[in-house]
């Protein structure tokens, strides 16, 4: 795990030293603030509904942020040639993947933590519970983990950053629209497809302040599956070249 942490620290350093990291943080916080002020706070609403809408918007920006944060993970290193340094070191593939994932995920959590002032404003001026805020952020953290893992996989597959962003975008959108596919298909297959629905089935309860163990299992499983796949992709490249 020491090697994974070393790679994670290097990744965090990379975000904090590059303009891209700050551009992502500034853009996402600006959009979050505008959505919160313009829509969630607009009109007459119960504070509970304001908070629910806040977490609804934040799920979207979290997914977009994940795509932009992760596109560089392996694809940039491949483009600049520094991936060779990692792949010729004694580090195992899973250590490299975990390191990249942890670095990107910590950066996303830092970005998410910077939005905390908005629900705190609702808490101070309205009637919401700490539990609702906790559940919402837990949902965001789990959704973020899954999206960062999917982005890590896309970045391990793609030859450059743009394709990595496109690929992770396609994968995340595909998981988002599973509920529509499930409705069309119906029956047992529809139920299986519907289970994969990232937002509709699994995230929405968190935004309402409800924590379900099955949704936690879903997000953790998705994260694990994506990271294992990324590890297999890196290992496979040693065979294929």
């Amino acid at each position: 795990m020491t090697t994974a942490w070393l790679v994670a620290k290097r990744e965090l350093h990379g975000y904090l030293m590059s303009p891209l990291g700050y551009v992502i943080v500034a853009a996402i916080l600006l959009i979050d603030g505008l959505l919160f002020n313009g829509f969630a706070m607009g009109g007459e609403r119960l504070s509970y509904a304001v908070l629910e809408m806040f977490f609804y918007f934040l799920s979207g920006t979290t997914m977009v942020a994940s795509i932009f944060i992760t596109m560089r993970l392996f694809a940039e290193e491949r483009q600049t040639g520094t991936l060779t340094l990692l792949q010729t070191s004694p580090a195992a593939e899973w250590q490299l993947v975990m390191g990249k994932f942890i670095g990107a995920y910590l950066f996303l959590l830092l970005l998410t933590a910077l939005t905390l002032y908005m629900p705190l404003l609702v808490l101070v001026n309205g009637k919401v519970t700490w539990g609702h805020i906790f559940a919402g952020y837990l949902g965001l953290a789990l959704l973020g983990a899954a999206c960062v893992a999917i982005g890590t996989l896309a970045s391990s597959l793609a030859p450059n950053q743009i394709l990595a962003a496109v690929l992770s975008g396609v994968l995340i959108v595909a998981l988002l629209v599973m509920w529509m596919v499930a409705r069309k298909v119906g029956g047992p297959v529809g139920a299986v497809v519907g289970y994969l629905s990232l937002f509709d089935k699994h995230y929405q309860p968190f935004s309402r302040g409800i924590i379900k163990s099955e949704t936690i299992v879903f997000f953790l499983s998705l994260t694990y599956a994506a990271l294992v796949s990324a590890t297999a992709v890196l290992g496979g490249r040693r065979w294929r070249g």
Partner: protein
Amino acid sequence: MIVAEEVSKYYGERRALDQVSFKIGAGEVAGFLGLNGAGKTTLLKILCGLLLPSSGRVRIDGIDVLDQPREVRRRIGFLPEQPPIYGDMTVRQMLGYAGRLNGLTGGEIGRRIDEVIAATELTSVADDLVAWLSQGYRQRLGIAQAIVHRPALVILDEPITGLDPKQIVGMRGLIRGLAEHHTVLVSSHILGEIHQTCDRILVLHQGRLIAQGTEAELTTQATGQVQVVARGAAELVQQTALKTKGVSRAEVEQTDDEVVTLLAEVDGLGGREALVSALVGAGVGVRRVAEVEAGLEAIFLRLTGSSAARSSAG
């Protein structure tokens, strides 16, 4: 140090390496010479564990790259054509990262960074960002990151690419210096470079190892021409030479009344021995046998040319 046995590598249907076998001893500075696309980089990537062979075996320090890839990688430092260095780190940070990644720890790392910075003459830029460095310093840093963890084997792929003449001279000295503590493998398509830095040369062409040895040995293999000064009748000398197995051409010139000079094309060292033996057997007084020297460029062209001819004939 390195034992490669019938190593082949395919990219899909395309064969990049074809049953390459060789051995390289500890402390040697060996050079892979070949035209662009000869398979040098593929072979180096296999040796450093970046790629796995499609067939064949490679052992580094007695360890098989397929059985224990991480153990093999621990023993290797690699500088690819493009140095794997991060522009947003300082030289010290970069070496610290590379060292830790390769297993250095604690107090050892600081001491080792200082040693490597001194050895690669990076002291004046040690706290500069990598992005600010010139190409020459980048190459030096590339070598520094390859040796920071004291690997037994250092592999350098085209280490002088993009350097100016002064930097090339400095790089040669640095590579020769590495041989004090490491086995060094260098690849290049520049003949003069291999000639100046390596003890032994391995010539790759179209994925096959077509020759290996010291420059002198390659000269013999490639030129195949020997000059024999002998006492005897010109006709006897020529006929004897032409009848000898392993001699494909023989021209005789009368030097004085008794002495002739034979210029013969022989098939390697065996052909040369057979020729001398046949001449002595025929009663010719062999006075001197010498190789006809050719430049490395001529040798290389001849080797790659004859290999291509063999391929097309086969």
